[in-house]
């Protein structure tokens, strides 16, 4: 393991602890997808993004990130805090009255790092495309990233935006889908099968890459590969294979932790599996 990968892996371990403690403290939230996407989000903010923690809404000259599956907010909040957008102590306010850390991300409470509300699914890719178009108009050659759940792509708006991005050569956009095969009511194959994601996105005219989303070295490798494919006339889609609940043995191989909080005993068990590397908030 290179020093960089080791450092990112340690950060991801701390972020996973944050997620579990946040969800436990308010006894609500979505730990499953948050844990599964932790490696993606840590690599994005600590390796890939050219960004400024002195938050500016327009983000000119910066890479931008849009979280479309807003329910994995505890992950985003932890990463934003650990990256320096706000104090890590504020993570304790997650989902509590008068917090800036709303159940789903919002600009409404002026939390630094967030540029649009998400939660109602399917909307983030359209917004990311708009931001990418504005960058082109502004001669700003930085990139736009977006993340989506696999269940989320059952929403029709995703396919409107998929068609638009390729037709209009929005090639400064790197989207990713968290392919964990689970949604609230069960496996995606049981609820509404997604079929071949590669075939679908290729048919829609996107450059499709695959990422092993819980292998930090592969996450970093694929991010670097994706960036090398920007500005070549196609939007880029990363199909990211993850395991919902990754990092906590009893939260994996099930959809039951999509939107459920651990009790005291379960929290202790889970934290025992994750090294405290940067200090708990």
């Amino acid at each position, binding site marked *: 393991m290179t020093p960089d990968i080791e450092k990112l892996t340690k950060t991801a371990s701390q972020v996973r602890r944050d997620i579990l403690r946040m969800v436990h403290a308010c006894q609500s939230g979505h730990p499953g997808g948050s844990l599964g996407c932790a490696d993606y989000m840590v690599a994005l903010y600590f390796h890939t993004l050219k960004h400024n923690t002195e938050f500016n809404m327009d983000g000119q000259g910066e890479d931008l990130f849009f979280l479309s599956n807003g329910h994995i907010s505890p992950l985003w909040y932890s990463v934003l805090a650990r990256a320096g957008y706000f104090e890590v102590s504020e993570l304790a306010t997650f989902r509590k009255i008068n917090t800036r850390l709303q159940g789903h991300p919002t600009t409404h409470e002026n939390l630094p790092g967030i*540029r649009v*509300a*998400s*939660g109602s699914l399917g*909307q983030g890719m359209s917004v*990311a495309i708009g931001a990418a178009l*504005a960058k082109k108009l502004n001669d700003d050659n930085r990139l736009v990233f977006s993340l989506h759940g696999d269940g989320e792509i059952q929403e029709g708006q995703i396919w*409107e935006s998929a068609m*638009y991005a390729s037709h209009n050569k929005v090639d400064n956009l790197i989207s990713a889908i968290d392919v964990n095969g689970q949604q609230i009511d069960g496996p995606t194959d049981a609820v509404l099968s997604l079929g071949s994601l590669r075939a679908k996105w290729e048919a829609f005219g996107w450059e499709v890459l695959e990422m092993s989303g819980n292998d930090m070295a592969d996450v970093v490798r694929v991010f670097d590969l994706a960036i090398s494919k920007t500005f070549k006339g196609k939007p880029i889609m990363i199909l990211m294979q993850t395991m919902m609940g990754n990092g906590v043995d009893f939260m994996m191989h099930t959809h039951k932790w999509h939107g459920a909080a651990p009790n005291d005993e379960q929290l202790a068990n889970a934290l025992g599996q994750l090294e405290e590397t940067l200090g708990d908030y």
Partner: protein
Amino acid sequence: MKKYTYTEKKDTRSGFGAGLLEAGKRNEKVVALCADLIGSLKMDAFIKEFPDRFFQIGIAEANMMGIAAGLTIGGKIPFTGTFANFSTGRVYDQIRQSIAYSDKNVKIAASHAGLTLGEDGATHQILEDIGMMKMLPGMVVINPCDYNQTKAATIAIADYHGPVYLRFGRPSVPVFTDPDQKFEIGKAWMVNGGTDVSIFATGHMVWKAIEAGEKLAEAGISAEIINIHTIKPLDTEAVLKSVAKTGCVVTAEEHNRFGGLGDSIAQVLAINNPAPQEYVAVNDSFGESGTPDQLMKKYGLDTEDIIKAVQKVIKRK
């Protein structure tokens, strides 16, 4: 009583098209999006002048609202263009989350509102849009009355920071307002002073209110006519001042009686100064195919309907 005349009829959507071009010339941040209705929205002139600042979205209104929200993040001032039906009901959640709740500086330009869309029928004749849009926190809702006012409103909202719903229509209607008017968001326009009844009208109904006012004057009734081009934020001061003088109210709108201008006025009066009120509005129904004039008559939105409502409400004082 001021006498209003007109020499030509024009559609309010052409006022939008002219206003969009002017707004684009004044501010390079203004961009436009359309969901496959360029001709209907009269966006051709803007596109010809600023081809790089126009985005053809295709028949995908949800995506259009999201892209508009994203464009604001790079500092742009996007105007979305499609029919009022597809600008509101079809994309309510996109507007709610990505634009209104996210406080994005998007201007939703909505044409072919109401019954006067005509022959296409009820699928396209939205009569609920004002209600939906005014319920969104922070959303400004504007329904100008003629070509000149629509052009002025379009220019004005480009200078205002925040989400705006701009509603206009398809048919040619009298052009009677000043071509050089300054449009003030949220400021009611006193069309004619009067003492016996206050008529608050919006959109195409303002001209009909003027026609009604002239006939009422012949019958000895002095009607105060106020153009409420901005339904939200409502000019409550103008409403209360007028009703304090007249003591009764008629509201006139090309919209369902539930959720529109009439309800906004009724709320202000109920809280501050309860007064008899009659609604000239569609009576909780869908429209149908027909010419605009036939439909306005059949659904009770004609000059005669305003006159009858005035006669009725005056008796209730």
